[in-house]
């Protein structure tokens, strides 16, 4: 009969062999009594280690600390799942709304610029800080509108100063806004 290896003897001592291998080892132990001692040595060592662990303190009680951490930094798992699903649903909805709004804007712009193409519209808003505060000074503004291009000017207010808007023709139209300082001669 083949003599079992020390590792197999260890597995035998630990009851980790299948029944066939265990049977084989137990048979061989009769022929090799020193192997029996090896098996016992493994078991005895285990009992020493367990005795050592028994004598040692069982460690600190961390229950309260762990539960505090668990309760402070998390919600119940079932709620987490619910929130996770809800978050997913929210993000999907928001993404859809953004996509729809972007499509609408693109469509609106394409409609509003359709009759101007290829030229852009020059537009001033009365709410712009440059043109506030006085609509009453609109008379001070002097506009030079190009005759051959289609341009809309909603509101122009240079305040107390006089101003002019020039359109410089070329490959592309360049817009120049000239505002005179107070007291500056034209």
């Amino acid at each position: 009969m083949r003599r079992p290896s020390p590792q197999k003897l260890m597995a035998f001592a630990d009851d980790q062999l299948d029944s066939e291998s265990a049977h084989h080892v137990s048979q061989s132990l009769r022929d090799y009594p020193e192997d029996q001692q090896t098996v016992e040595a493994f078991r005895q060592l285990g009992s020493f280690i367990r005795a050592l662990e028994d004598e040692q303190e069982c460690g600190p009680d961390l229950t309260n600390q762990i539960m505090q951490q668990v309760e402070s930094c998390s919600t119940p798992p079932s709620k987490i799942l619910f929130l996770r699903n809800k978050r997913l649903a929210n993000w999907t909805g928001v993404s859809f709304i953004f996509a729809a709004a972007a499509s609408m804007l693109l469509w609106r712009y394409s409609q509003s610029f359709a009759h101007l193409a290829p030229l852009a519209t020059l537009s001033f808003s009365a709410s712009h800080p440059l043109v506030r505060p006085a609509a009453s000074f609109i008379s001070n503004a002097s506009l030079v509108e190009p005759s051959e291009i289609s341009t809309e000017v909603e509101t122009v207010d240079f305040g107390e100063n006089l101003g002019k808007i020039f359109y410089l023709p070329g490959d592309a139209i360049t817009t120049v806004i000239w505002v005179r300082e107070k007291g500056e001669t034209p």
Partner: protein
Amino acid sequence: MAPSNPQAKQAESEEDRALIEAAKKGDTRAFRCLVERHQHRAYAIAFAMVRNEQDARDIVQEGFLRVHRSLPNFAGNAIFFTWFYRIITNLCIDLLRKPGRKTMELATLDERADSLVPADCEFPLLQKFENGNPLETLHRAQVLKKIHDALETLSPLHRGAILLREVEGMSYEEMAEAMGVSQGTIMSRLFHARQKLQRALRDFYLESQNTNPLNHVAGDLK
């Protein structure tokens, strides 16, 4: 200490499963019960591996936090304690691998120890213990102290393997799952760890025999 017989382990596993199911539904008391059941064993394993009380405490706390976070993903048919000890073992290994930590290098030491040990080793200690009745001549406390010291010299992975087997009573299969390695690796680690412990005990025994004349008398009488 973990239950040693299979029936008790099975019962414990069933109770763990019930607690996990309750904890999944948000039952805090069930989770607290899980903590109470496993914290000391987890601490023992963590301390055995990292050899530092504060680190072991941090690892146990982090381990339970991870368990709590992962509860929704925990498969009902899995065994809680192997899953949990794998988390603990991984946290220990992560800590030991941190740069600047003054400890034995996990991988190199483990491999070196495995490669140095001859295949045909001997375990002569027991023969002398049996024949010479050493428990009469050696103080139990001294033996345990020697084992404790010898455990200190083991690599963290070898120490972890010994603890999982001898104290937790895990099977090789469970240990392999808990440590994320093959059963062959587990057997190798266990074998070499035990061999080293046996050597330490043998040296201690021989030393005692030489220094205590009463032992020779006792040996002659046998």
